[in-house]
Every structure is written in structure tokens, then in C-alpha cells.
């Protein structure tokens, strides 16, 4: 089954890397949509069928924390699993994001396999 993925990161280089890593790892990517911050992500979510969201935290305009919060309070979006991909591995940040509704957390740097496994884990939970 191919999955539609939304990649949210203010760095075009990081978005390109994540896209590449998803393919390299063998994760079955169908449609891949990109957004450079939380606001763009919400627009993309309203216009596209998305199976899973990968988001950074530190972004201009709307950060990843606010994006997760808004999605969690939206009836149409709250079922879409969010995996946070961030350099921030502090315990308080991870705990906050998971409490807000994020289903997974991957810390940069990561191996392609790690990202694939985390995506498969949250999608399995989602479709169980």
C-alpha cells in the first residue's frame, strides 16, 4: 500500500533529504506533499488526502508544536498521525509533543531505517 506523506520543514534541503530517505529506505511513498511551516501544512492538509505528516518543530509563522495542537483539535485532521522529526531531543520537548497528539518522534541525525520503522509503527497503530 502506497502512503501519501506531508513533509513540513522550513528548510528545502531538509525536505529533499527526507523525501530521498523515504525512497532509499524502501518506504512505500505514493504522493509526497511539502510545506515550509505549520500554516502551509494546514492548507495542504485541507486540499490533499494525507496518510501521515512528518514535521519539524522550529519553523517561522507556525511551528510544529502549534501544528500538532491545531490538528489534534480538528475533527477532520486529528486522525492523521504526526511524526516529529527534529534535532531537539530534550525530554521536555518530546514529552510535550507526544502529549499534544504526535504519534512518533525521530531525532536528527537518524538512519533511513529508523525513519521508516517509526512511520510503519505509527501507520500500523493507525490502521490496527
Amino acid at each position: 500500500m502506497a502512503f501519501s506523506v506531508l513533509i513540513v520543514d522550513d528548510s528545502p534541503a531538509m525536505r529533499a533529504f527526507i523525501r530521498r530517505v523515504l525512497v532509499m529506505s524502501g518506504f512505500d511513498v505514493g504522493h509526497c506533499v511539502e510545506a515550509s511551516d505549520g500554516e502551509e501544512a494546514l492548507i495542504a492538509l485541507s486540499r490533499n488526502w494525507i496518510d501521515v505528516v512528518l514535521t519539524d518543530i522550529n519553523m517561522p509563522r507556525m511551528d510544529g508544536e502549534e501544528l500538532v495542537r491545531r490538528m489534534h483539535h480538528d475533527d477532520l485532521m486529528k486522525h492523521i498521525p504526526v511524526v516529529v522529526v527534529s534535532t531537539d531531543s530534550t525530554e521536555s520537548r518530546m514529552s510535550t509533543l507526544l502529549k499534544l497528539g504526535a504519534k512518533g518522534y525521530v531525532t536528527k541525525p537518524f538512519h533511513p531505517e529508523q525513519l521508516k520503522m517509526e512511520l510503519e509503527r505509527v501507520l500500523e497503530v493507525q490502521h490496527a
Partner: protein
Amino acid sequence: MPSLVVLDWNAFLFAAAQEVLETMFFTSVYGISQGSVTGNVLFSTLRFEGYPSGTVTIGISEETVRPMAANFLGLEADEITLNQLEQVCSELANMVCGNVLSRTAADRTFRLTHPQTHQKMVPNGVKTVTFSAIIVNLDIENGVFTSQIDFDSALHDQQEENSKLNAIV
């Protein structure tokens, strides 16, 4: 709370830079370098605010970072633009900073600014820094990678301030 003064920040910076370069850029790290970055060098700097506070800077020549950026982006080295090289350097600085902080103070909260990247011509034999608390130069594929941490104030001062805050709370 563990003392930040006794932590070996050089070792943490070395480990952080090595992990980021090898994992995300598929670039081999051979060890500590006796050389320094020269030529057209891209420097990327960001601030971290918390306990402690300071800046992380990375430096790498355009010649060295170009094949790394190709690995990162999945493009041919000669088709990568300067703008893309700057984006890659910013990501590199961001990851080194996040990684080193997680190794030293994972139980604390930090705010990181967006990295600022600029180019500078560094002639051979010229030192790129005059003073820095922590500097690690690494021999990597195709050249040298430098990283440094500058703290806003001496670590023992920051620790003392933090102890006072804890006492008040």
C-alpha cells in the same frame, strides 16, 4: 543537577559532529585534524538559549561541502547551487548544535535560533577564530570540518547563576 563544568565538551562536540556527518551526510570522519579550513569557506552559526547559552558555529570549504551536499540532496555535485550549499550548511549546524546539547543536557529545555550562513575567503595558514571555548577540527572525506562552541559566559558563572535561581525557586 550535574555540573556542566566537569563535562568534556570537546568530546561531546567531536561525537556530535561525527554522528551527524556519518549518519546524515554519509561522510567518513577520520579523526581530529591538525589542519584548518581554508579557501572559500561557508560558516554557519546559530544561538542556543537555556542553561548554558551560547553559539555553535560550523565551517567547511565549498570544495569539501559540495560532494556532501550531493549526498544529502541526492543530486550531482556540479548541479548544486550556492543557495543549496548554504541550506545544507545551515542544517548541518542545526543538527550538530541539537546533538551536542542532547548529549550534555537532555533534561533541559533550549531555544535554538535559525542558523545564519555566510561565505568567507580564508587564505591558507590563517586561523579562522581568535578565541573560542571549544573548537574541534575534523579530518573528513575531501577536507577539514571545523566546529566550535562559544558560551555567553564562563560555565562556572552560568552554573552559579543557575544555582541561585534554583535556590530562589
